[in-house]
């Protein structure tokens, strides 16, 4: 067999892994790889983003909606450092992404050469694994390992840094997918006696309660969860990233957990006697003050990541396992029961929230449009089936509260890191992974301007996403905290915005701005039925607050309705 360059080996390895979409941005140190890519345009599509942060968020959106790995390319130095925010985001939200960065030639490493940064060092805390490759012949094995690590166990981002001489070097290509690494144990062997212990607790519980997280989605365990829930009769609540993993209209679904979640699931956390947590990690946004969190409950925790067990709360039973496998076995061990009066407690508490918050939010008496009524109407018009990508802030919390995610892999948001600027590029990635689905990016006026340059990517690649800007002319979430906890001292949260619709038009994107309730329904219809990218700016109430709220340092049982 004739030899090929390391660069061509990169592309051939990606093809061997089934990659057909790459998000990237070229530069000096990765030019040989881009040159090799030129000959493979029939097999792989390269999306030229406008900033490397856009590349990685797009790769994340792609990965999270298509259950595959996202891939991005960046050059050395500034190209690589621009990936860092996205790596941190993918790390904390367990998203499989493979980043390939170019690096200066190996003889220049460590010499402060032009565009040299220690990307391995910088990315170490925010990658599941990273490696530098300095010889062409090591490229396929490094990439095979990268894909295996990114996808397996608890998924995460990996970075492969390839020196320029390795890209130019010649090698014999032979690709073997990686199936095992001796020091890595991604598939835990479940201890069935733990499942028995869990079943005993659940079968004798008076007020058992299930908390689900993204682990359900990542394990593809939606069906197993549904069967378990229906047999056991136990009420279910979800974290932010768990939304979409369980039907929101199911009679046993009791709502969304956490700081701006629903009233009932938060307040009744401190009433449950047994809690079964599956694929969630007791983030502080979910627990509030952890010293006053579910102290009365015996906790059963199922997670694929051993380090999550007993990390925040102390478990009665820890089950180190894949959620799909664990739930399937647990279903066979639990008794068929109902918990009507316990679920009724949730419904009673829910009434308080409907009266105090929800009714007013979706059928407001205020003059100005409220974020919640916009999201609620969008949810109805799309029947909860759209892929909804949100940015970070009030609009994000409102969306997670009022959009009914009825389909799997449709709730895409930056949960753990809370990265403003995530939504626009992530929506681009989501659309490319799901060309036939409606993708709506709900973004605040502040966050939109953090990655606004990606409108150029939409223009160039004709990406049909719907951009819904909820414009309150404020860095709203921070303003809310200033109002509630800093005596309304609005320190640098009022933001002067550009003319968004005109900007969209500059990118050939059709756009409309509305500020009246009477215009809302038609505007949403126009947006949803347009055959190309569309930007709808909805001017909403400036000083709307998101409630309920568990304030920092408060217990979940101190959740405020106003």
């Amino acid at each position: 067999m004739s030899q090929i360059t390391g660069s061509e080996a990169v592309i051939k390895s990606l093809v061997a892994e089934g990659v057909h979409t790459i998000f990237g941005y070229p530069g000096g140190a990765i030019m040989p790889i881009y040159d090799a890519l030129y000959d493979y345009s029939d097999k792989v599509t390269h999306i030229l983003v406008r900033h490397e942060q856009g590349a990685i968020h797009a790769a994340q959106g792609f990965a999270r909606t298509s259950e595959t790995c996202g891939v991005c390319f960046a050059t050395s130095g500034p190209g690589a450092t621009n990936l860092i925010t996205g790596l941190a985001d993918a790390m904390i939200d367990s998203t499989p992404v493979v980043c390939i960065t170019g690096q200066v030639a190996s003889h220049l490493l460590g010499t402060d050469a032009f565009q040299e940064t220690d990307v391995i060092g910088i990315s170490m805390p925010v990658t599941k694994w990273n490696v530098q490759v300095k010889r062409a012949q090591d490229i396929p094995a490094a990439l095979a390992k990268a894909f295996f690590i990114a996808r397996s166990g608890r998924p995460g981002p990996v970075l492969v840094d390839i020196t320029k001489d390795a890209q130019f070097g010649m090698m014999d290509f032979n690709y073997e997918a990686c199936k095992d690494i001796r020091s890595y144990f991604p598939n835990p062997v479940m201890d069935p006696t733990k499942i028995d212990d869990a079943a005993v607790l659940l079968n004798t519980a008076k007020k058992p309660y299930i908390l689900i997280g993204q682990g359900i989605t990542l394990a593809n365990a939606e069906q197993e969860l549904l069967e378990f829930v229906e047999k056991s009769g136990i009420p279910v609540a979800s974290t932010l990233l768990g939304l979409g993993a369980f039907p929101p209209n199911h009679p046993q679904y009791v709502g969304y957990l956490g700081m701006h979640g629903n009233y009932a699931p938060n307040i009744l956390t401190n009433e449950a006697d047994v809690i079964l947590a599956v694929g969630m990690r007791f983030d502080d946004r979910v627990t509030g003050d952890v010293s006053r969190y579910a102290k009365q409950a015996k906790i059963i925790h199922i997670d694929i990541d051993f380090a999550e067990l007993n990390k925040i709360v102390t478990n009665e039973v820890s089950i180190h396992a894949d959620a799909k496998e664990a739930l399937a076995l647990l279903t066979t061990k639990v008794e068929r029961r109902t918990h009507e009066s316990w679920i009724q407690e949730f419904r009673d508490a829910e009434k308080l929230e409907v009266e105090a918050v929800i009714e007013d939010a979706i059928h407001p008496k205020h003059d100005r449009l409220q974020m919640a009524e916009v999201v609620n109407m969008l949810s109805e018009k799309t029947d909860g089936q759209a892929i909804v990508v949100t940015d970070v802030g009030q609009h994000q919390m409102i969306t997670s509260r009022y959009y009914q995610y009825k389909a799997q892999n449709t709730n895409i948001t930056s949960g753990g890191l809370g990265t403003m600027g995530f939504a626009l590029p992530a929506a681009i990635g989501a659309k490319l992974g799901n060309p036939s689905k409606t993708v709506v990016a709900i973004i605040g006026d502040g966050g939109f301007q953090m990655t606004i340059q990606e409108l150029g990517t939409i223009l160039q690649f004709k990406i049909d996403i719907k951009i819904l800007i909820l414009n309150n002319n404020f860095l709203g979430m921070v303003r809310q905290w200033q109002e509630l906890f800093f005596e309304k001292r609005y320190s640098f949260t009022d933001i002067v915005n550009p003319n968004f619709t005109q900007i969209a038009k500059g990118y050939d994107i059709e756009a409309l701005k509305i500020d009246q309730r009477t215009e809302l329904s038609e505007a949403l219809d126009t947006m949803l039925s347009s055959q190309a990218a569309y930007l709808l700016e909805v001017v909403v109430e400036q000083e709307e607050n998101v409630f309920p709220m568990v304030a920092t340092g408060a217990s979940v049982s101190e959740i405020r309705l106003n």
Partner: protein
Amino acid sequence: MENNTYNISVFTENSVGMLNRITIIFTRRNINIESITASESEIEGIHRYTIVVNEPKETVRKVISQIEKQIDVVKAFYHSDDEVVYQEIALYKLPTKALASGGDAERIVRAHHARILTIESEFTILEKTGYPDEIKELFTELKPFGLLEFVRSGRVAISKPMKTLEEHLEDMNNEKIIL
């Protein structure tokens, strides 16, 4: 929660950057590393780190699971002082003149079971292995002789339980599911 001395042993692949990946986990939690040493282990290609920290047991347990989560870490253990045998080594550099002048030097060297590594006309180097307080004691006694230089290694420790790393690995591999 009460702080205690824990001896953490980490066995890893011999890959570049491993030390960094491990220490990041301590830095993130603002844990001070009292001492750290690295060397080969009894298994070819596997490196071993001995890390000493003074922390509550709960914290150490959590750190261990986060260390084990690193792809290239094979296994990590933690042991309290009474579960390990440990040693440190120290070197002391003294002016030869000072040592030769009085009769006390010989007594000190003998009493502390120190070894003389080299005697040059200008300086002499002594070596002492033992517990940190023994090393410190010798240091105090040698100080009046005009100690020129002093260096102490980090701790090396071996646990008392008999199960070998190889056996641990075997158990883990028997349980390994390869899809």
